[in-house]
C-alpha cells in the first residue's frame, strides 16, 4: 500500500472522527431533528431517547451513573463550569482552590478569573518528571480549601498524575476533587468510583467523536456534588447547564465512548508499541531527551527535545508531510516557549527544541517509519547549520557565553 501524505500525528490537538460515529449522528440532523426538551410530541421523545442512550454510553465508559453526566459544548466549558461552579456553590465553606502549573489554559485561566472574584488559588509546581508532589499537595490544604483541580493526563507531555493518591488526600480532608480528563478518557481506563473523582471534564473530539460537545461528570453520591450554573436559561441538565442539547453531537459522543469502551485496551497496546518504537529510534540521535515521566504516561503521546535545533525550524523541514506540534511558540507574539515544559524546569533552549507526537487510531507502522526517517534527517541537517551544535562539538559550554538577549 502506498503511504498517503500528509501524516497526522497531532492527535492530542484533535482526532479525526471515527466513521462509525458519523454514521450514528447522521439521522439526527434532518430526519430526527427534535428538541430533546420537547416533552409533548414524538419529535422530542425521539431526541430525548437518543440523548438518554448516549448518556448511558458515556457513563458506562467512566463507570458513572447516567444521571451524573452533564453535557456541555466541550471540555473548556466543562472546566469553567467545574471550577467557577464549585467556587460559587461552596462559597460558604471556603474560597481556596489547589491546582498545578501544568494544567490546561482553560483551568489556569478560570482560576485566574476566580482570583479576581476574591478566591485564593495555589498553583503547585511539578517535579522535573511532570508529576506533582503529593506531600506538597497535602501541605497546601487549609481549612478554606474547597477544591483540588489536577488533570488526569497532560496534553503536552502525556504524564498521568497519581489520581487515586490525590483523591484519597482530598477525601481525607473533606475537599472535592476535580480532574480534567480530556486526554485520558477513552485512551486509558478511567473509573470515577475507583479513582475517587468528584468532578471530571472531557471532550468528544479528543476521542474520535465530534467537536462542540463535551461532558462534566458531577458525582451524585458520597458526596453529592453541586455546581452553580454558569449558563442561565431553561434549566437543562439538572439545572447545571441550560441550553438546547446538541443532539447529534451528544449521539456522536455516546457512540465514540462506546467504541473506546470496546477498543481502548487493544488500541492502547498497539499505540504504545508504536510510540515506543518511534521514541527509541529518535533517541538514537545524540542529545535527544524525552520530556516527562516515561512510566506514568498516556500510551499515545511522547514529547522529545532535540537539543541545538529549534522546534519550529525543525517542523518546517517536514511539515508538508507530517503534522505535529512544537513546544517552541516562535510564531506567537510572546515568543515564549511552552509553559508546561518550562514548569518541568527545562531551560528555554530545550523547550524551544521540542516536538510533541500524538499518535491515534489511524496511525500506521508505515507512517511511523516515514516519520522516524524524516525527523532524523532534518535534525541532522539542521545541526549541521546550527552554531550551537558546532560549539557543543568543540566542547564550548554554552552557558559560558554572554548572549545578546533581544
Amino acid at each position, binding site marked *: 500500500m502506498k503511504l498517503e501524505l500528509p501524516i497526522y500525528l497531532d492527535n492530542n490537538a484533535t482526532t479525526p472522527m471515527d466513521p462509525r460515529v458519523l454514521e450514528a449522528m447522521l439521522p439526527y440532523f434532518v430526519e430526527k431533528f427534535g428538541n430533546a426538551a420537547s416533552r409533548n410530541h414524538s419529535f422530542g421523545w425521539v431526541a430525548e431517547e437518543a440523548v438518554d442512550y448516549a448518556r448511558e454510553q458515556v457513563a458506562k465508559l467512566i463507570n458513572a451513573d447516567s444521571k451524573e453526566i452533564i453535557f456541555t459544548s466541550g471540555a473548556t466549558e466543562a472546566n469553567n463550569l467545574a471550577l467557577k461552579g464549585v467556587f460559587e456553590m461552596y462559597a460558604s465553606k471556603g474560597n481556596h482552590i489547589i491546582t498545578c502549573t501544568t494544567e490546561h489554559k482553560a483551568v489556569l485561566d478560570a482560576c485566574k478569573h476566580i482570583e479576581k472574584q476574591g478566591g485564593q488559588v495555589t498553583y503547585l509546581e511539578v517535579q522535573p518528571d511532570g508529576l506533582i508532589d503529593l506531600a506538597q499537595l497535602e501541605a497546601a490544604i487549609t481549612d478554606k480549601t474547597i477544591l483540588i483541580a489536577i488533570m488526569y493526563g497532560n496534553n503536552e507531555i502525556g504524564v498521568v498524575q497519581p489520581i487515586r493518591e490525590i483523591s484519597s488526600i482530598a477525601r481525607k480532608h473533606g475537599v472535592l476533587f476535580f480532574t480534567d480528563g480530556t486526554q485520558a478518557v477513552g485512551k486509558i481506563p478511567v473509573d470515577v468510583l475507583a479513582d475517587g473523582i468528584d468532578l471530571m471534564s472531557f471532550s468528544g473530539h479528543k476521542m474520535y467523536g465530534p467537536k462542540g460537545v463535551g461532558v462534566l461528570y458531577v458525582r451524585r453520591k458520597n458526596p453529592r456534588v453541586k455546581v452553580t450554573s454558569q449558563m442561565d436559561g431553561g434549566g437543562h441538565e439538572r439545572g447545571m447547564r441550560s441550553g438546547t442539547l446538541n443532539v447529534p453531537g451528544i449521539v456522536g459522543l455516546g457512540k465514540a465512548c462506546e467504541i473506546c469502551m470496546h477498543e481502548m485496551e487493544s488500541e492502547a497496546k498497539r499505540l504504545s508499541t508504536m510510540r515506543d518504537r518511534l521514541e527509541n529510534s529518535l533517541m538514537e540521535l545524540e542529545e535527544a531527551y524525552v520530556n516527562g515521566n516515561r512510566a506514568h504516561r498516556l500510551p499515545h503521546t511522547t514529547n522529545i527535545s532535540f537539543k*541545538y*535545533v*529549534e522546534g*519550529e*525550524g525543525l517542523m*518546517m*523541514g517536514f511539515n508538508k508531510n507530517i503534522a505535529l506540534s512544537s513546544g*517552541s511558540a*516562535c*510564531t*506567537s*507574539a510572546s*515568543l515564549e*516557549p511552552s509553559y508546561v515544559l518550562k514548569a518541568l524546569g527545562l*531551560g*528555554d*533552549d530545550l523547550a*524551544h527544541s521540542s516536538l510533541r507526537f500524538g499518535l491515534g487510531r489511524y496511525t500506521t507502522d508505515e507512517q511511523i517509519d516515514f516519520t522516524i526517517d524524516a525527523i532524523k534527517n532534518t535534525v541532522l541537517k*539542521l545541526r*549541521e*547549520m*546550527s*552554531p*550551537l*551544535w*558546532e560549539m557543543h562539538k568543540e566542547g564550548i559550554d*554554552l552557558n559560558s*557565553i554572554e*548572549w*545578546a*538577549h*533581544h
Partner: protein
Amino acid sequence: MAYSEKLIDHYSNPKNVGTLDKAKTNVGTGLVGAPECGDVMRLQIEVDEVSGMISDAKFKTFGCGSAIASSSLATEWLKGKSIDEALLIDNMDIVEELNLPPVKIHCSVLAEDAIKAAINDYRVKNGLPEMVSEKKAH
C-alpha cells in the same frame, strides 16, 4: 501561515552554510541572539585585503525557518560588496525579499545585527574604531 517560495527555498537549500577561520585577521565574525530566545545567528565575512571587497560569507543559524532563510539571504547579499555597501543592508530589505510575516520581522533584525557585528569584529581586528550604531528595537 504560508511562507513565500523564496523563504522556503532558502530554508531547504541554504546558501553559504559553514565556518570561516575566525583567527584570520581578514575574517569578521558576528554572533547574535540567544538560545533562550529561540534563535542564534553566527555570520562571518572574509574581506579581500587588496580590493576591500567581501570575498566570502558564511553562516550558521539556530532558529526557525525565517531565521535560517534571513541569514542565508544575508550571506548571498554580502558577497561582492564593500564594507560600506554591506552596512547599507537594512532589515526591511530582507523582510521584503522573503515576504516575512509580521511575527518574523525580528529574524530580519537579527540578520542585520549579525552583519553589523561581523563588520565590527573585522574593524576591531584591523585597528579601526568600533562603530556605534543605534540599536534597533526588537
